[in-house]
């Protein structure tokens, strides 16, 4: 019979109505978004104090211009190099017969657990003046090495410790890619390279863009690396100005920094980063691996080189300092177990809060058809992009100004610290929860509704159990980054409250590297553990 036998699926079904969202959800998500944006009010308040003419004067100084140029150079170099490094690595570990593929798959993601300031101090210690390398080369008449300080060192360190963002997103996208598409291209007279360029690349581009965004925001906002590498970018200068009571300048520079962040987000949006990465799109036939032939071992050497530089250098340096022991001079820097407890406790608190308050935004963004979801999600990103220095200083400022006795007596010190972390890392919880929500068919809660459950009941009995792994994964991510967070901790920690991070900072700042070894190694270990949790939660396939 000739009737219309076209399968009607998506076309016949309208996009899920915003109805399931409900206005309660919008209000909750809106409150969270506003709270997250609150610290930025500091910039505005301070900006008004300076006035327009004063602001113009400060911003047109030569120093400001050089900061802008330096920051752009750093962000551009780190992002570009990360993509150049991460995409081939992702391809090698997913699609080829690379030797030790499983090992490299994990090892190449591991640099993410190394806080960049630990990496930076290790690299300075290894390759800087009077560093380990120069000591070793001195007998051969090498008097000076090219300097590690400045743009080169900052770029090197930041690239090595942030490329995994691109690596992980690209890998995930490559794994879900249906390889029959590539095979189809090959049968249509495309070489491997042409097929990659015309079929694979367009499909993994949203993933690369998403990863690059994280890298760019990280590079822009990182405080530790440029500080140690003595490279004048926004974060370093803001911190210096603030400590030198140049608060107006600090606020104005923060404002510029926030504007640049917003510009990057807008650019990412235009570059197609908002494409929803397709999930559940048939299972790629992963059997067909690209045979590397004689490039097999050079490829392994490439992967090995990256791993060695990113992991072996800092571990080696830390090991060296550990063996040499502490000089015993620096009082108050001795390691205490309580630092571990403090670090873990505060990070757990931040992770829990972020997972809970991130839920309304994630739900609205994943399910709602209203514009609010998108706006709120973007709003939560701003806090993530705003450097920890700015958040920290803003909360110090706001706390001192409006906190009154509560702030002075330290009653709100811990809540403020946790709030600072949540503002910084909320998007990690939102992103992970949102991704797992998108994997839950909207028909499931609808089915629960038709079986007599209220909207909340349907969410609790059906959606929540299904997104729990994603929530735990997101919380673990917040935990990991909170453990490593430097500037917010430095600025907001209550007096006498010391964590692993503050110990490392004080030891390296005062040159007592030996004292940094134990807390750094513990920090690395705990971070690595939570990384493994994340990998297993998000189904990071090791095969």
């Amino acid at each position, binding site marked *: 019979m000739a009737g219309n036998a076209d*399968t009607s699926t998506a076309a*016949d079904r309208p996009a899920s109505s915003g*109805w399931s969202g409900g206005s309660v959800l919008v209000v909750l998500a809106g409150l969270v978004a506003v709270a997250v944006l609150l610290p930025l009010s500091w910039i505005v308040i301070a900006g008004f104090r300076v006035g327009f003419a004063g602001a113009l004067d400060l911003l047109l100084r030569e120093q400001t211009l050089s900061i802008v140029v330096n920051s752009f150079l750093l962000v551009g170099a780190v992002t570009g190099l990360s993509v150049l490094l991460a995409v081939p690595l992702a391809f090698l570990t997913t699609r080829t017969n690379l030797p030790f593929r499983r090992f490299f798959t994990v090892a190449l993601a591991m640099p993410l657990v190394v806080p960049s300031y630990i990496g930076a101090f290790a690299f300075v210690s290894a390759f800087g003046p009077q560093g380990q390398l120069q000591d070793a080369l001195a007998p051969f008449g090498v008097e000076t090495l090219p300097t590690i300080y400045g743009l080169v060192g900052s770029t090197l360190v930041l690239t090595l410790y942030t490329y995994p963002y691109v690596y992980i997103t690209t890998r995930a996208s490559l794994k879900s890619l249906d390889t029959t598409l590539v095979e189809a291209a090959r049968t249509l007279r495309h070489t491997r390279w042409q097929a990659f360029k015309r079929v694979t690349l367009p499909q993994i581009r949203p993933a690369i863009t998403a990863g690059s965004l994280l890298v760019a925001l990280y590079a822009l906002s990182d405080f530790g690396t440029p500080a140690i590498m003595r490279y004048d970018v926004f974060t370093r200068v803001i911190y210096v100005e603030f400590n030198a009571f140049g608060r107006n300048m600090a606020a104005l520079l923060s404002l510029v920094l926030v504007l640049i962040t917003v510009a990057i987000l807008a650019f990412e949006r235009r570059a197609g980063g908002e494409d929803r990465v397709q999930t559940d799109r048939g299972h790629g036939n992963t059997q067909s691996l690209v045979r590397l032939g004689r490039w097999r071992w050079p490829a392994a050497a490439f992967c090995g080189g990256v791993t060695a530089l990113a992991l072996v250098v800092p571990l080696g340096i830390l090991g060296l300092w550990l063996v040499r022991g502490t000089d015993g001079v620096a009082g108050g820097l001795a390691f205490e177990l309580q630092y571990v407890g403090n670090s873990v406790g505060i990070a757990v608190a931040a992770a829990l809060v972020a997972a809970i308050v991130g839920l309304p935004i994630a739900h609205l963004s994943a399910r709602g058809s209203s514009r609010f979801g998108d706006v709120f999600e973007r709003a939560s990103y701003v806090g993530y992009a705003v450097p920890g220095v700015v958040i920290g200083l803003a909360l110090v400022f706001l706390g001192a100004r409006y906190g009154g006795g509560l702030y002075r007596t330290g009653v709100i010190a811990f809540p403020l610290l946790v709030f600072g972390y949540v503002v910084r890392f909320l998007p990690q919880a939102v992103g992970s929860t949102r991704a797992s929500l998108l994997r839950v068919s909207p*028909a499931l809660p609808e089915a629960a*509704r*038709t079986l007599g459950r209220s909207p909340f*009941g349907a969410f609790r009995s059906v959606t929540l159990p299904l997104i729990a792994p994603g929530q735990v994964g997101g919380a673990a991510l917040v935990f990991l980054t909170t453990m490593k967070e430097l500037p917010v901790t430095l600025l907001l920690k209550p007096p006498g409250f010391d964590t692993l991070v503050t110990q490392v900072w004080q030891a390296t700042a005062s040159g007592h590297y030996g004292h940094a070894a134990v807390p750094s190694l513990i920090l690395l270990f705990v971070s690595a553990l939570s990384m493994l949790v994340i990998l297993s939660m998000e189904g990071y396939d090791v095969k």
Partner: protein
Amino acid sequence: MSNENAVRTETAQQSDDANTVLELVGIHKQFGGETVIENLDLSVREGELLTLLGPSGCGKTTTLRLIAGLEEPDGGEIRLRGDPVAGSGSFVAPEQRDVGIVFQEFALFPHKTAEENVAFGLHDLPEAEQKQRVDDLLDLVGLEAHRESYPDELSGGQQQRVALARSLAPEPQLLLLDEPFSNLDVDLRVEMREEVRRILKEAGVTAVSVTHDQEEAMSISDRVAVMHDGNLEQVGTPEQVFQHPESRFVASFLGHASFLSGRVQEDGILTPVGSIERDRVYGLSHEYDGADIDLLVRPDDVRAEPVPKSEANGQVMHRRFLGPSILYRVELGNGDVVGCMHNHDEEVPLNEPVAVELAADHELSWFPEGVRRVARDCTPGDD
């Protein structure tokens, strides 16, 4: 107005009699400015299985979601057993409608076993009753052996049985099925049609299903409602809708349709295949005398015989082998093209003259020429 015409239209008494479970009155729905459903009226009676049939994008799934309360209509009213559940300012949430739904992808909860899925809607019942009800339903759908299985351990057919049992468990006053068979393999589809109909009839539930597959609609339904572009084209029993379509769209959508142009005369209709007696045409009144009409012929209504050119009225243009049968496309002298179905061993040579003759032993439907659908209550046009 002719009495015959009144007979032709499906009895449209949408009365408020006690038998009516569901009523849609003047339903209107838009998505982002685009009208998906326009002024839809429909009523469903106690115990019947009604199928909304139509092509992709005709609004049938939206209609289902409106009935379930998963969408809100922009206009009109939905009544369940006479009580408004949507429209006129009221909106009853899906969990309070007592309407079950079987989703296209079944929407089984992946973290619950078959048994737990079925029990999901029974959370208000005491445990013993719950268990009894779950047992009864698993028995009804023949899945006692798989009660401990998780959805991903079940085959497509088994998943559908669980979905059916789950939605029937709370004894809804109305059950909705959204493309219930589209997720199944072709072989399984035919088998599950019979099975689902059996289960629904055994459960005695009133049901509305949605499909784009006309064969499925005709084989499982008590009544079929054909939708097109957000409008209801015709409602009737499968036989009525197939044999006496009220619009050319319905005629073509339900099966291969050819149209023979003819002129109504005193003693018969003059067509390219000869004169056809008046009593072989369904409900043709004398008001149409002298008018041009199109007669609907299905491929099994006509035959083409190879004849010498002098006796021929057409020529075979195309042949499509379908296995058990062959479909020949014949162009007639006036340019009309008709499809003729023959047994697979009856060869008719291509591009040769043939005589097409009417072999139908039932009354033929017709449409006034140039008119999309049969006039329901207006005098024939003077075209």
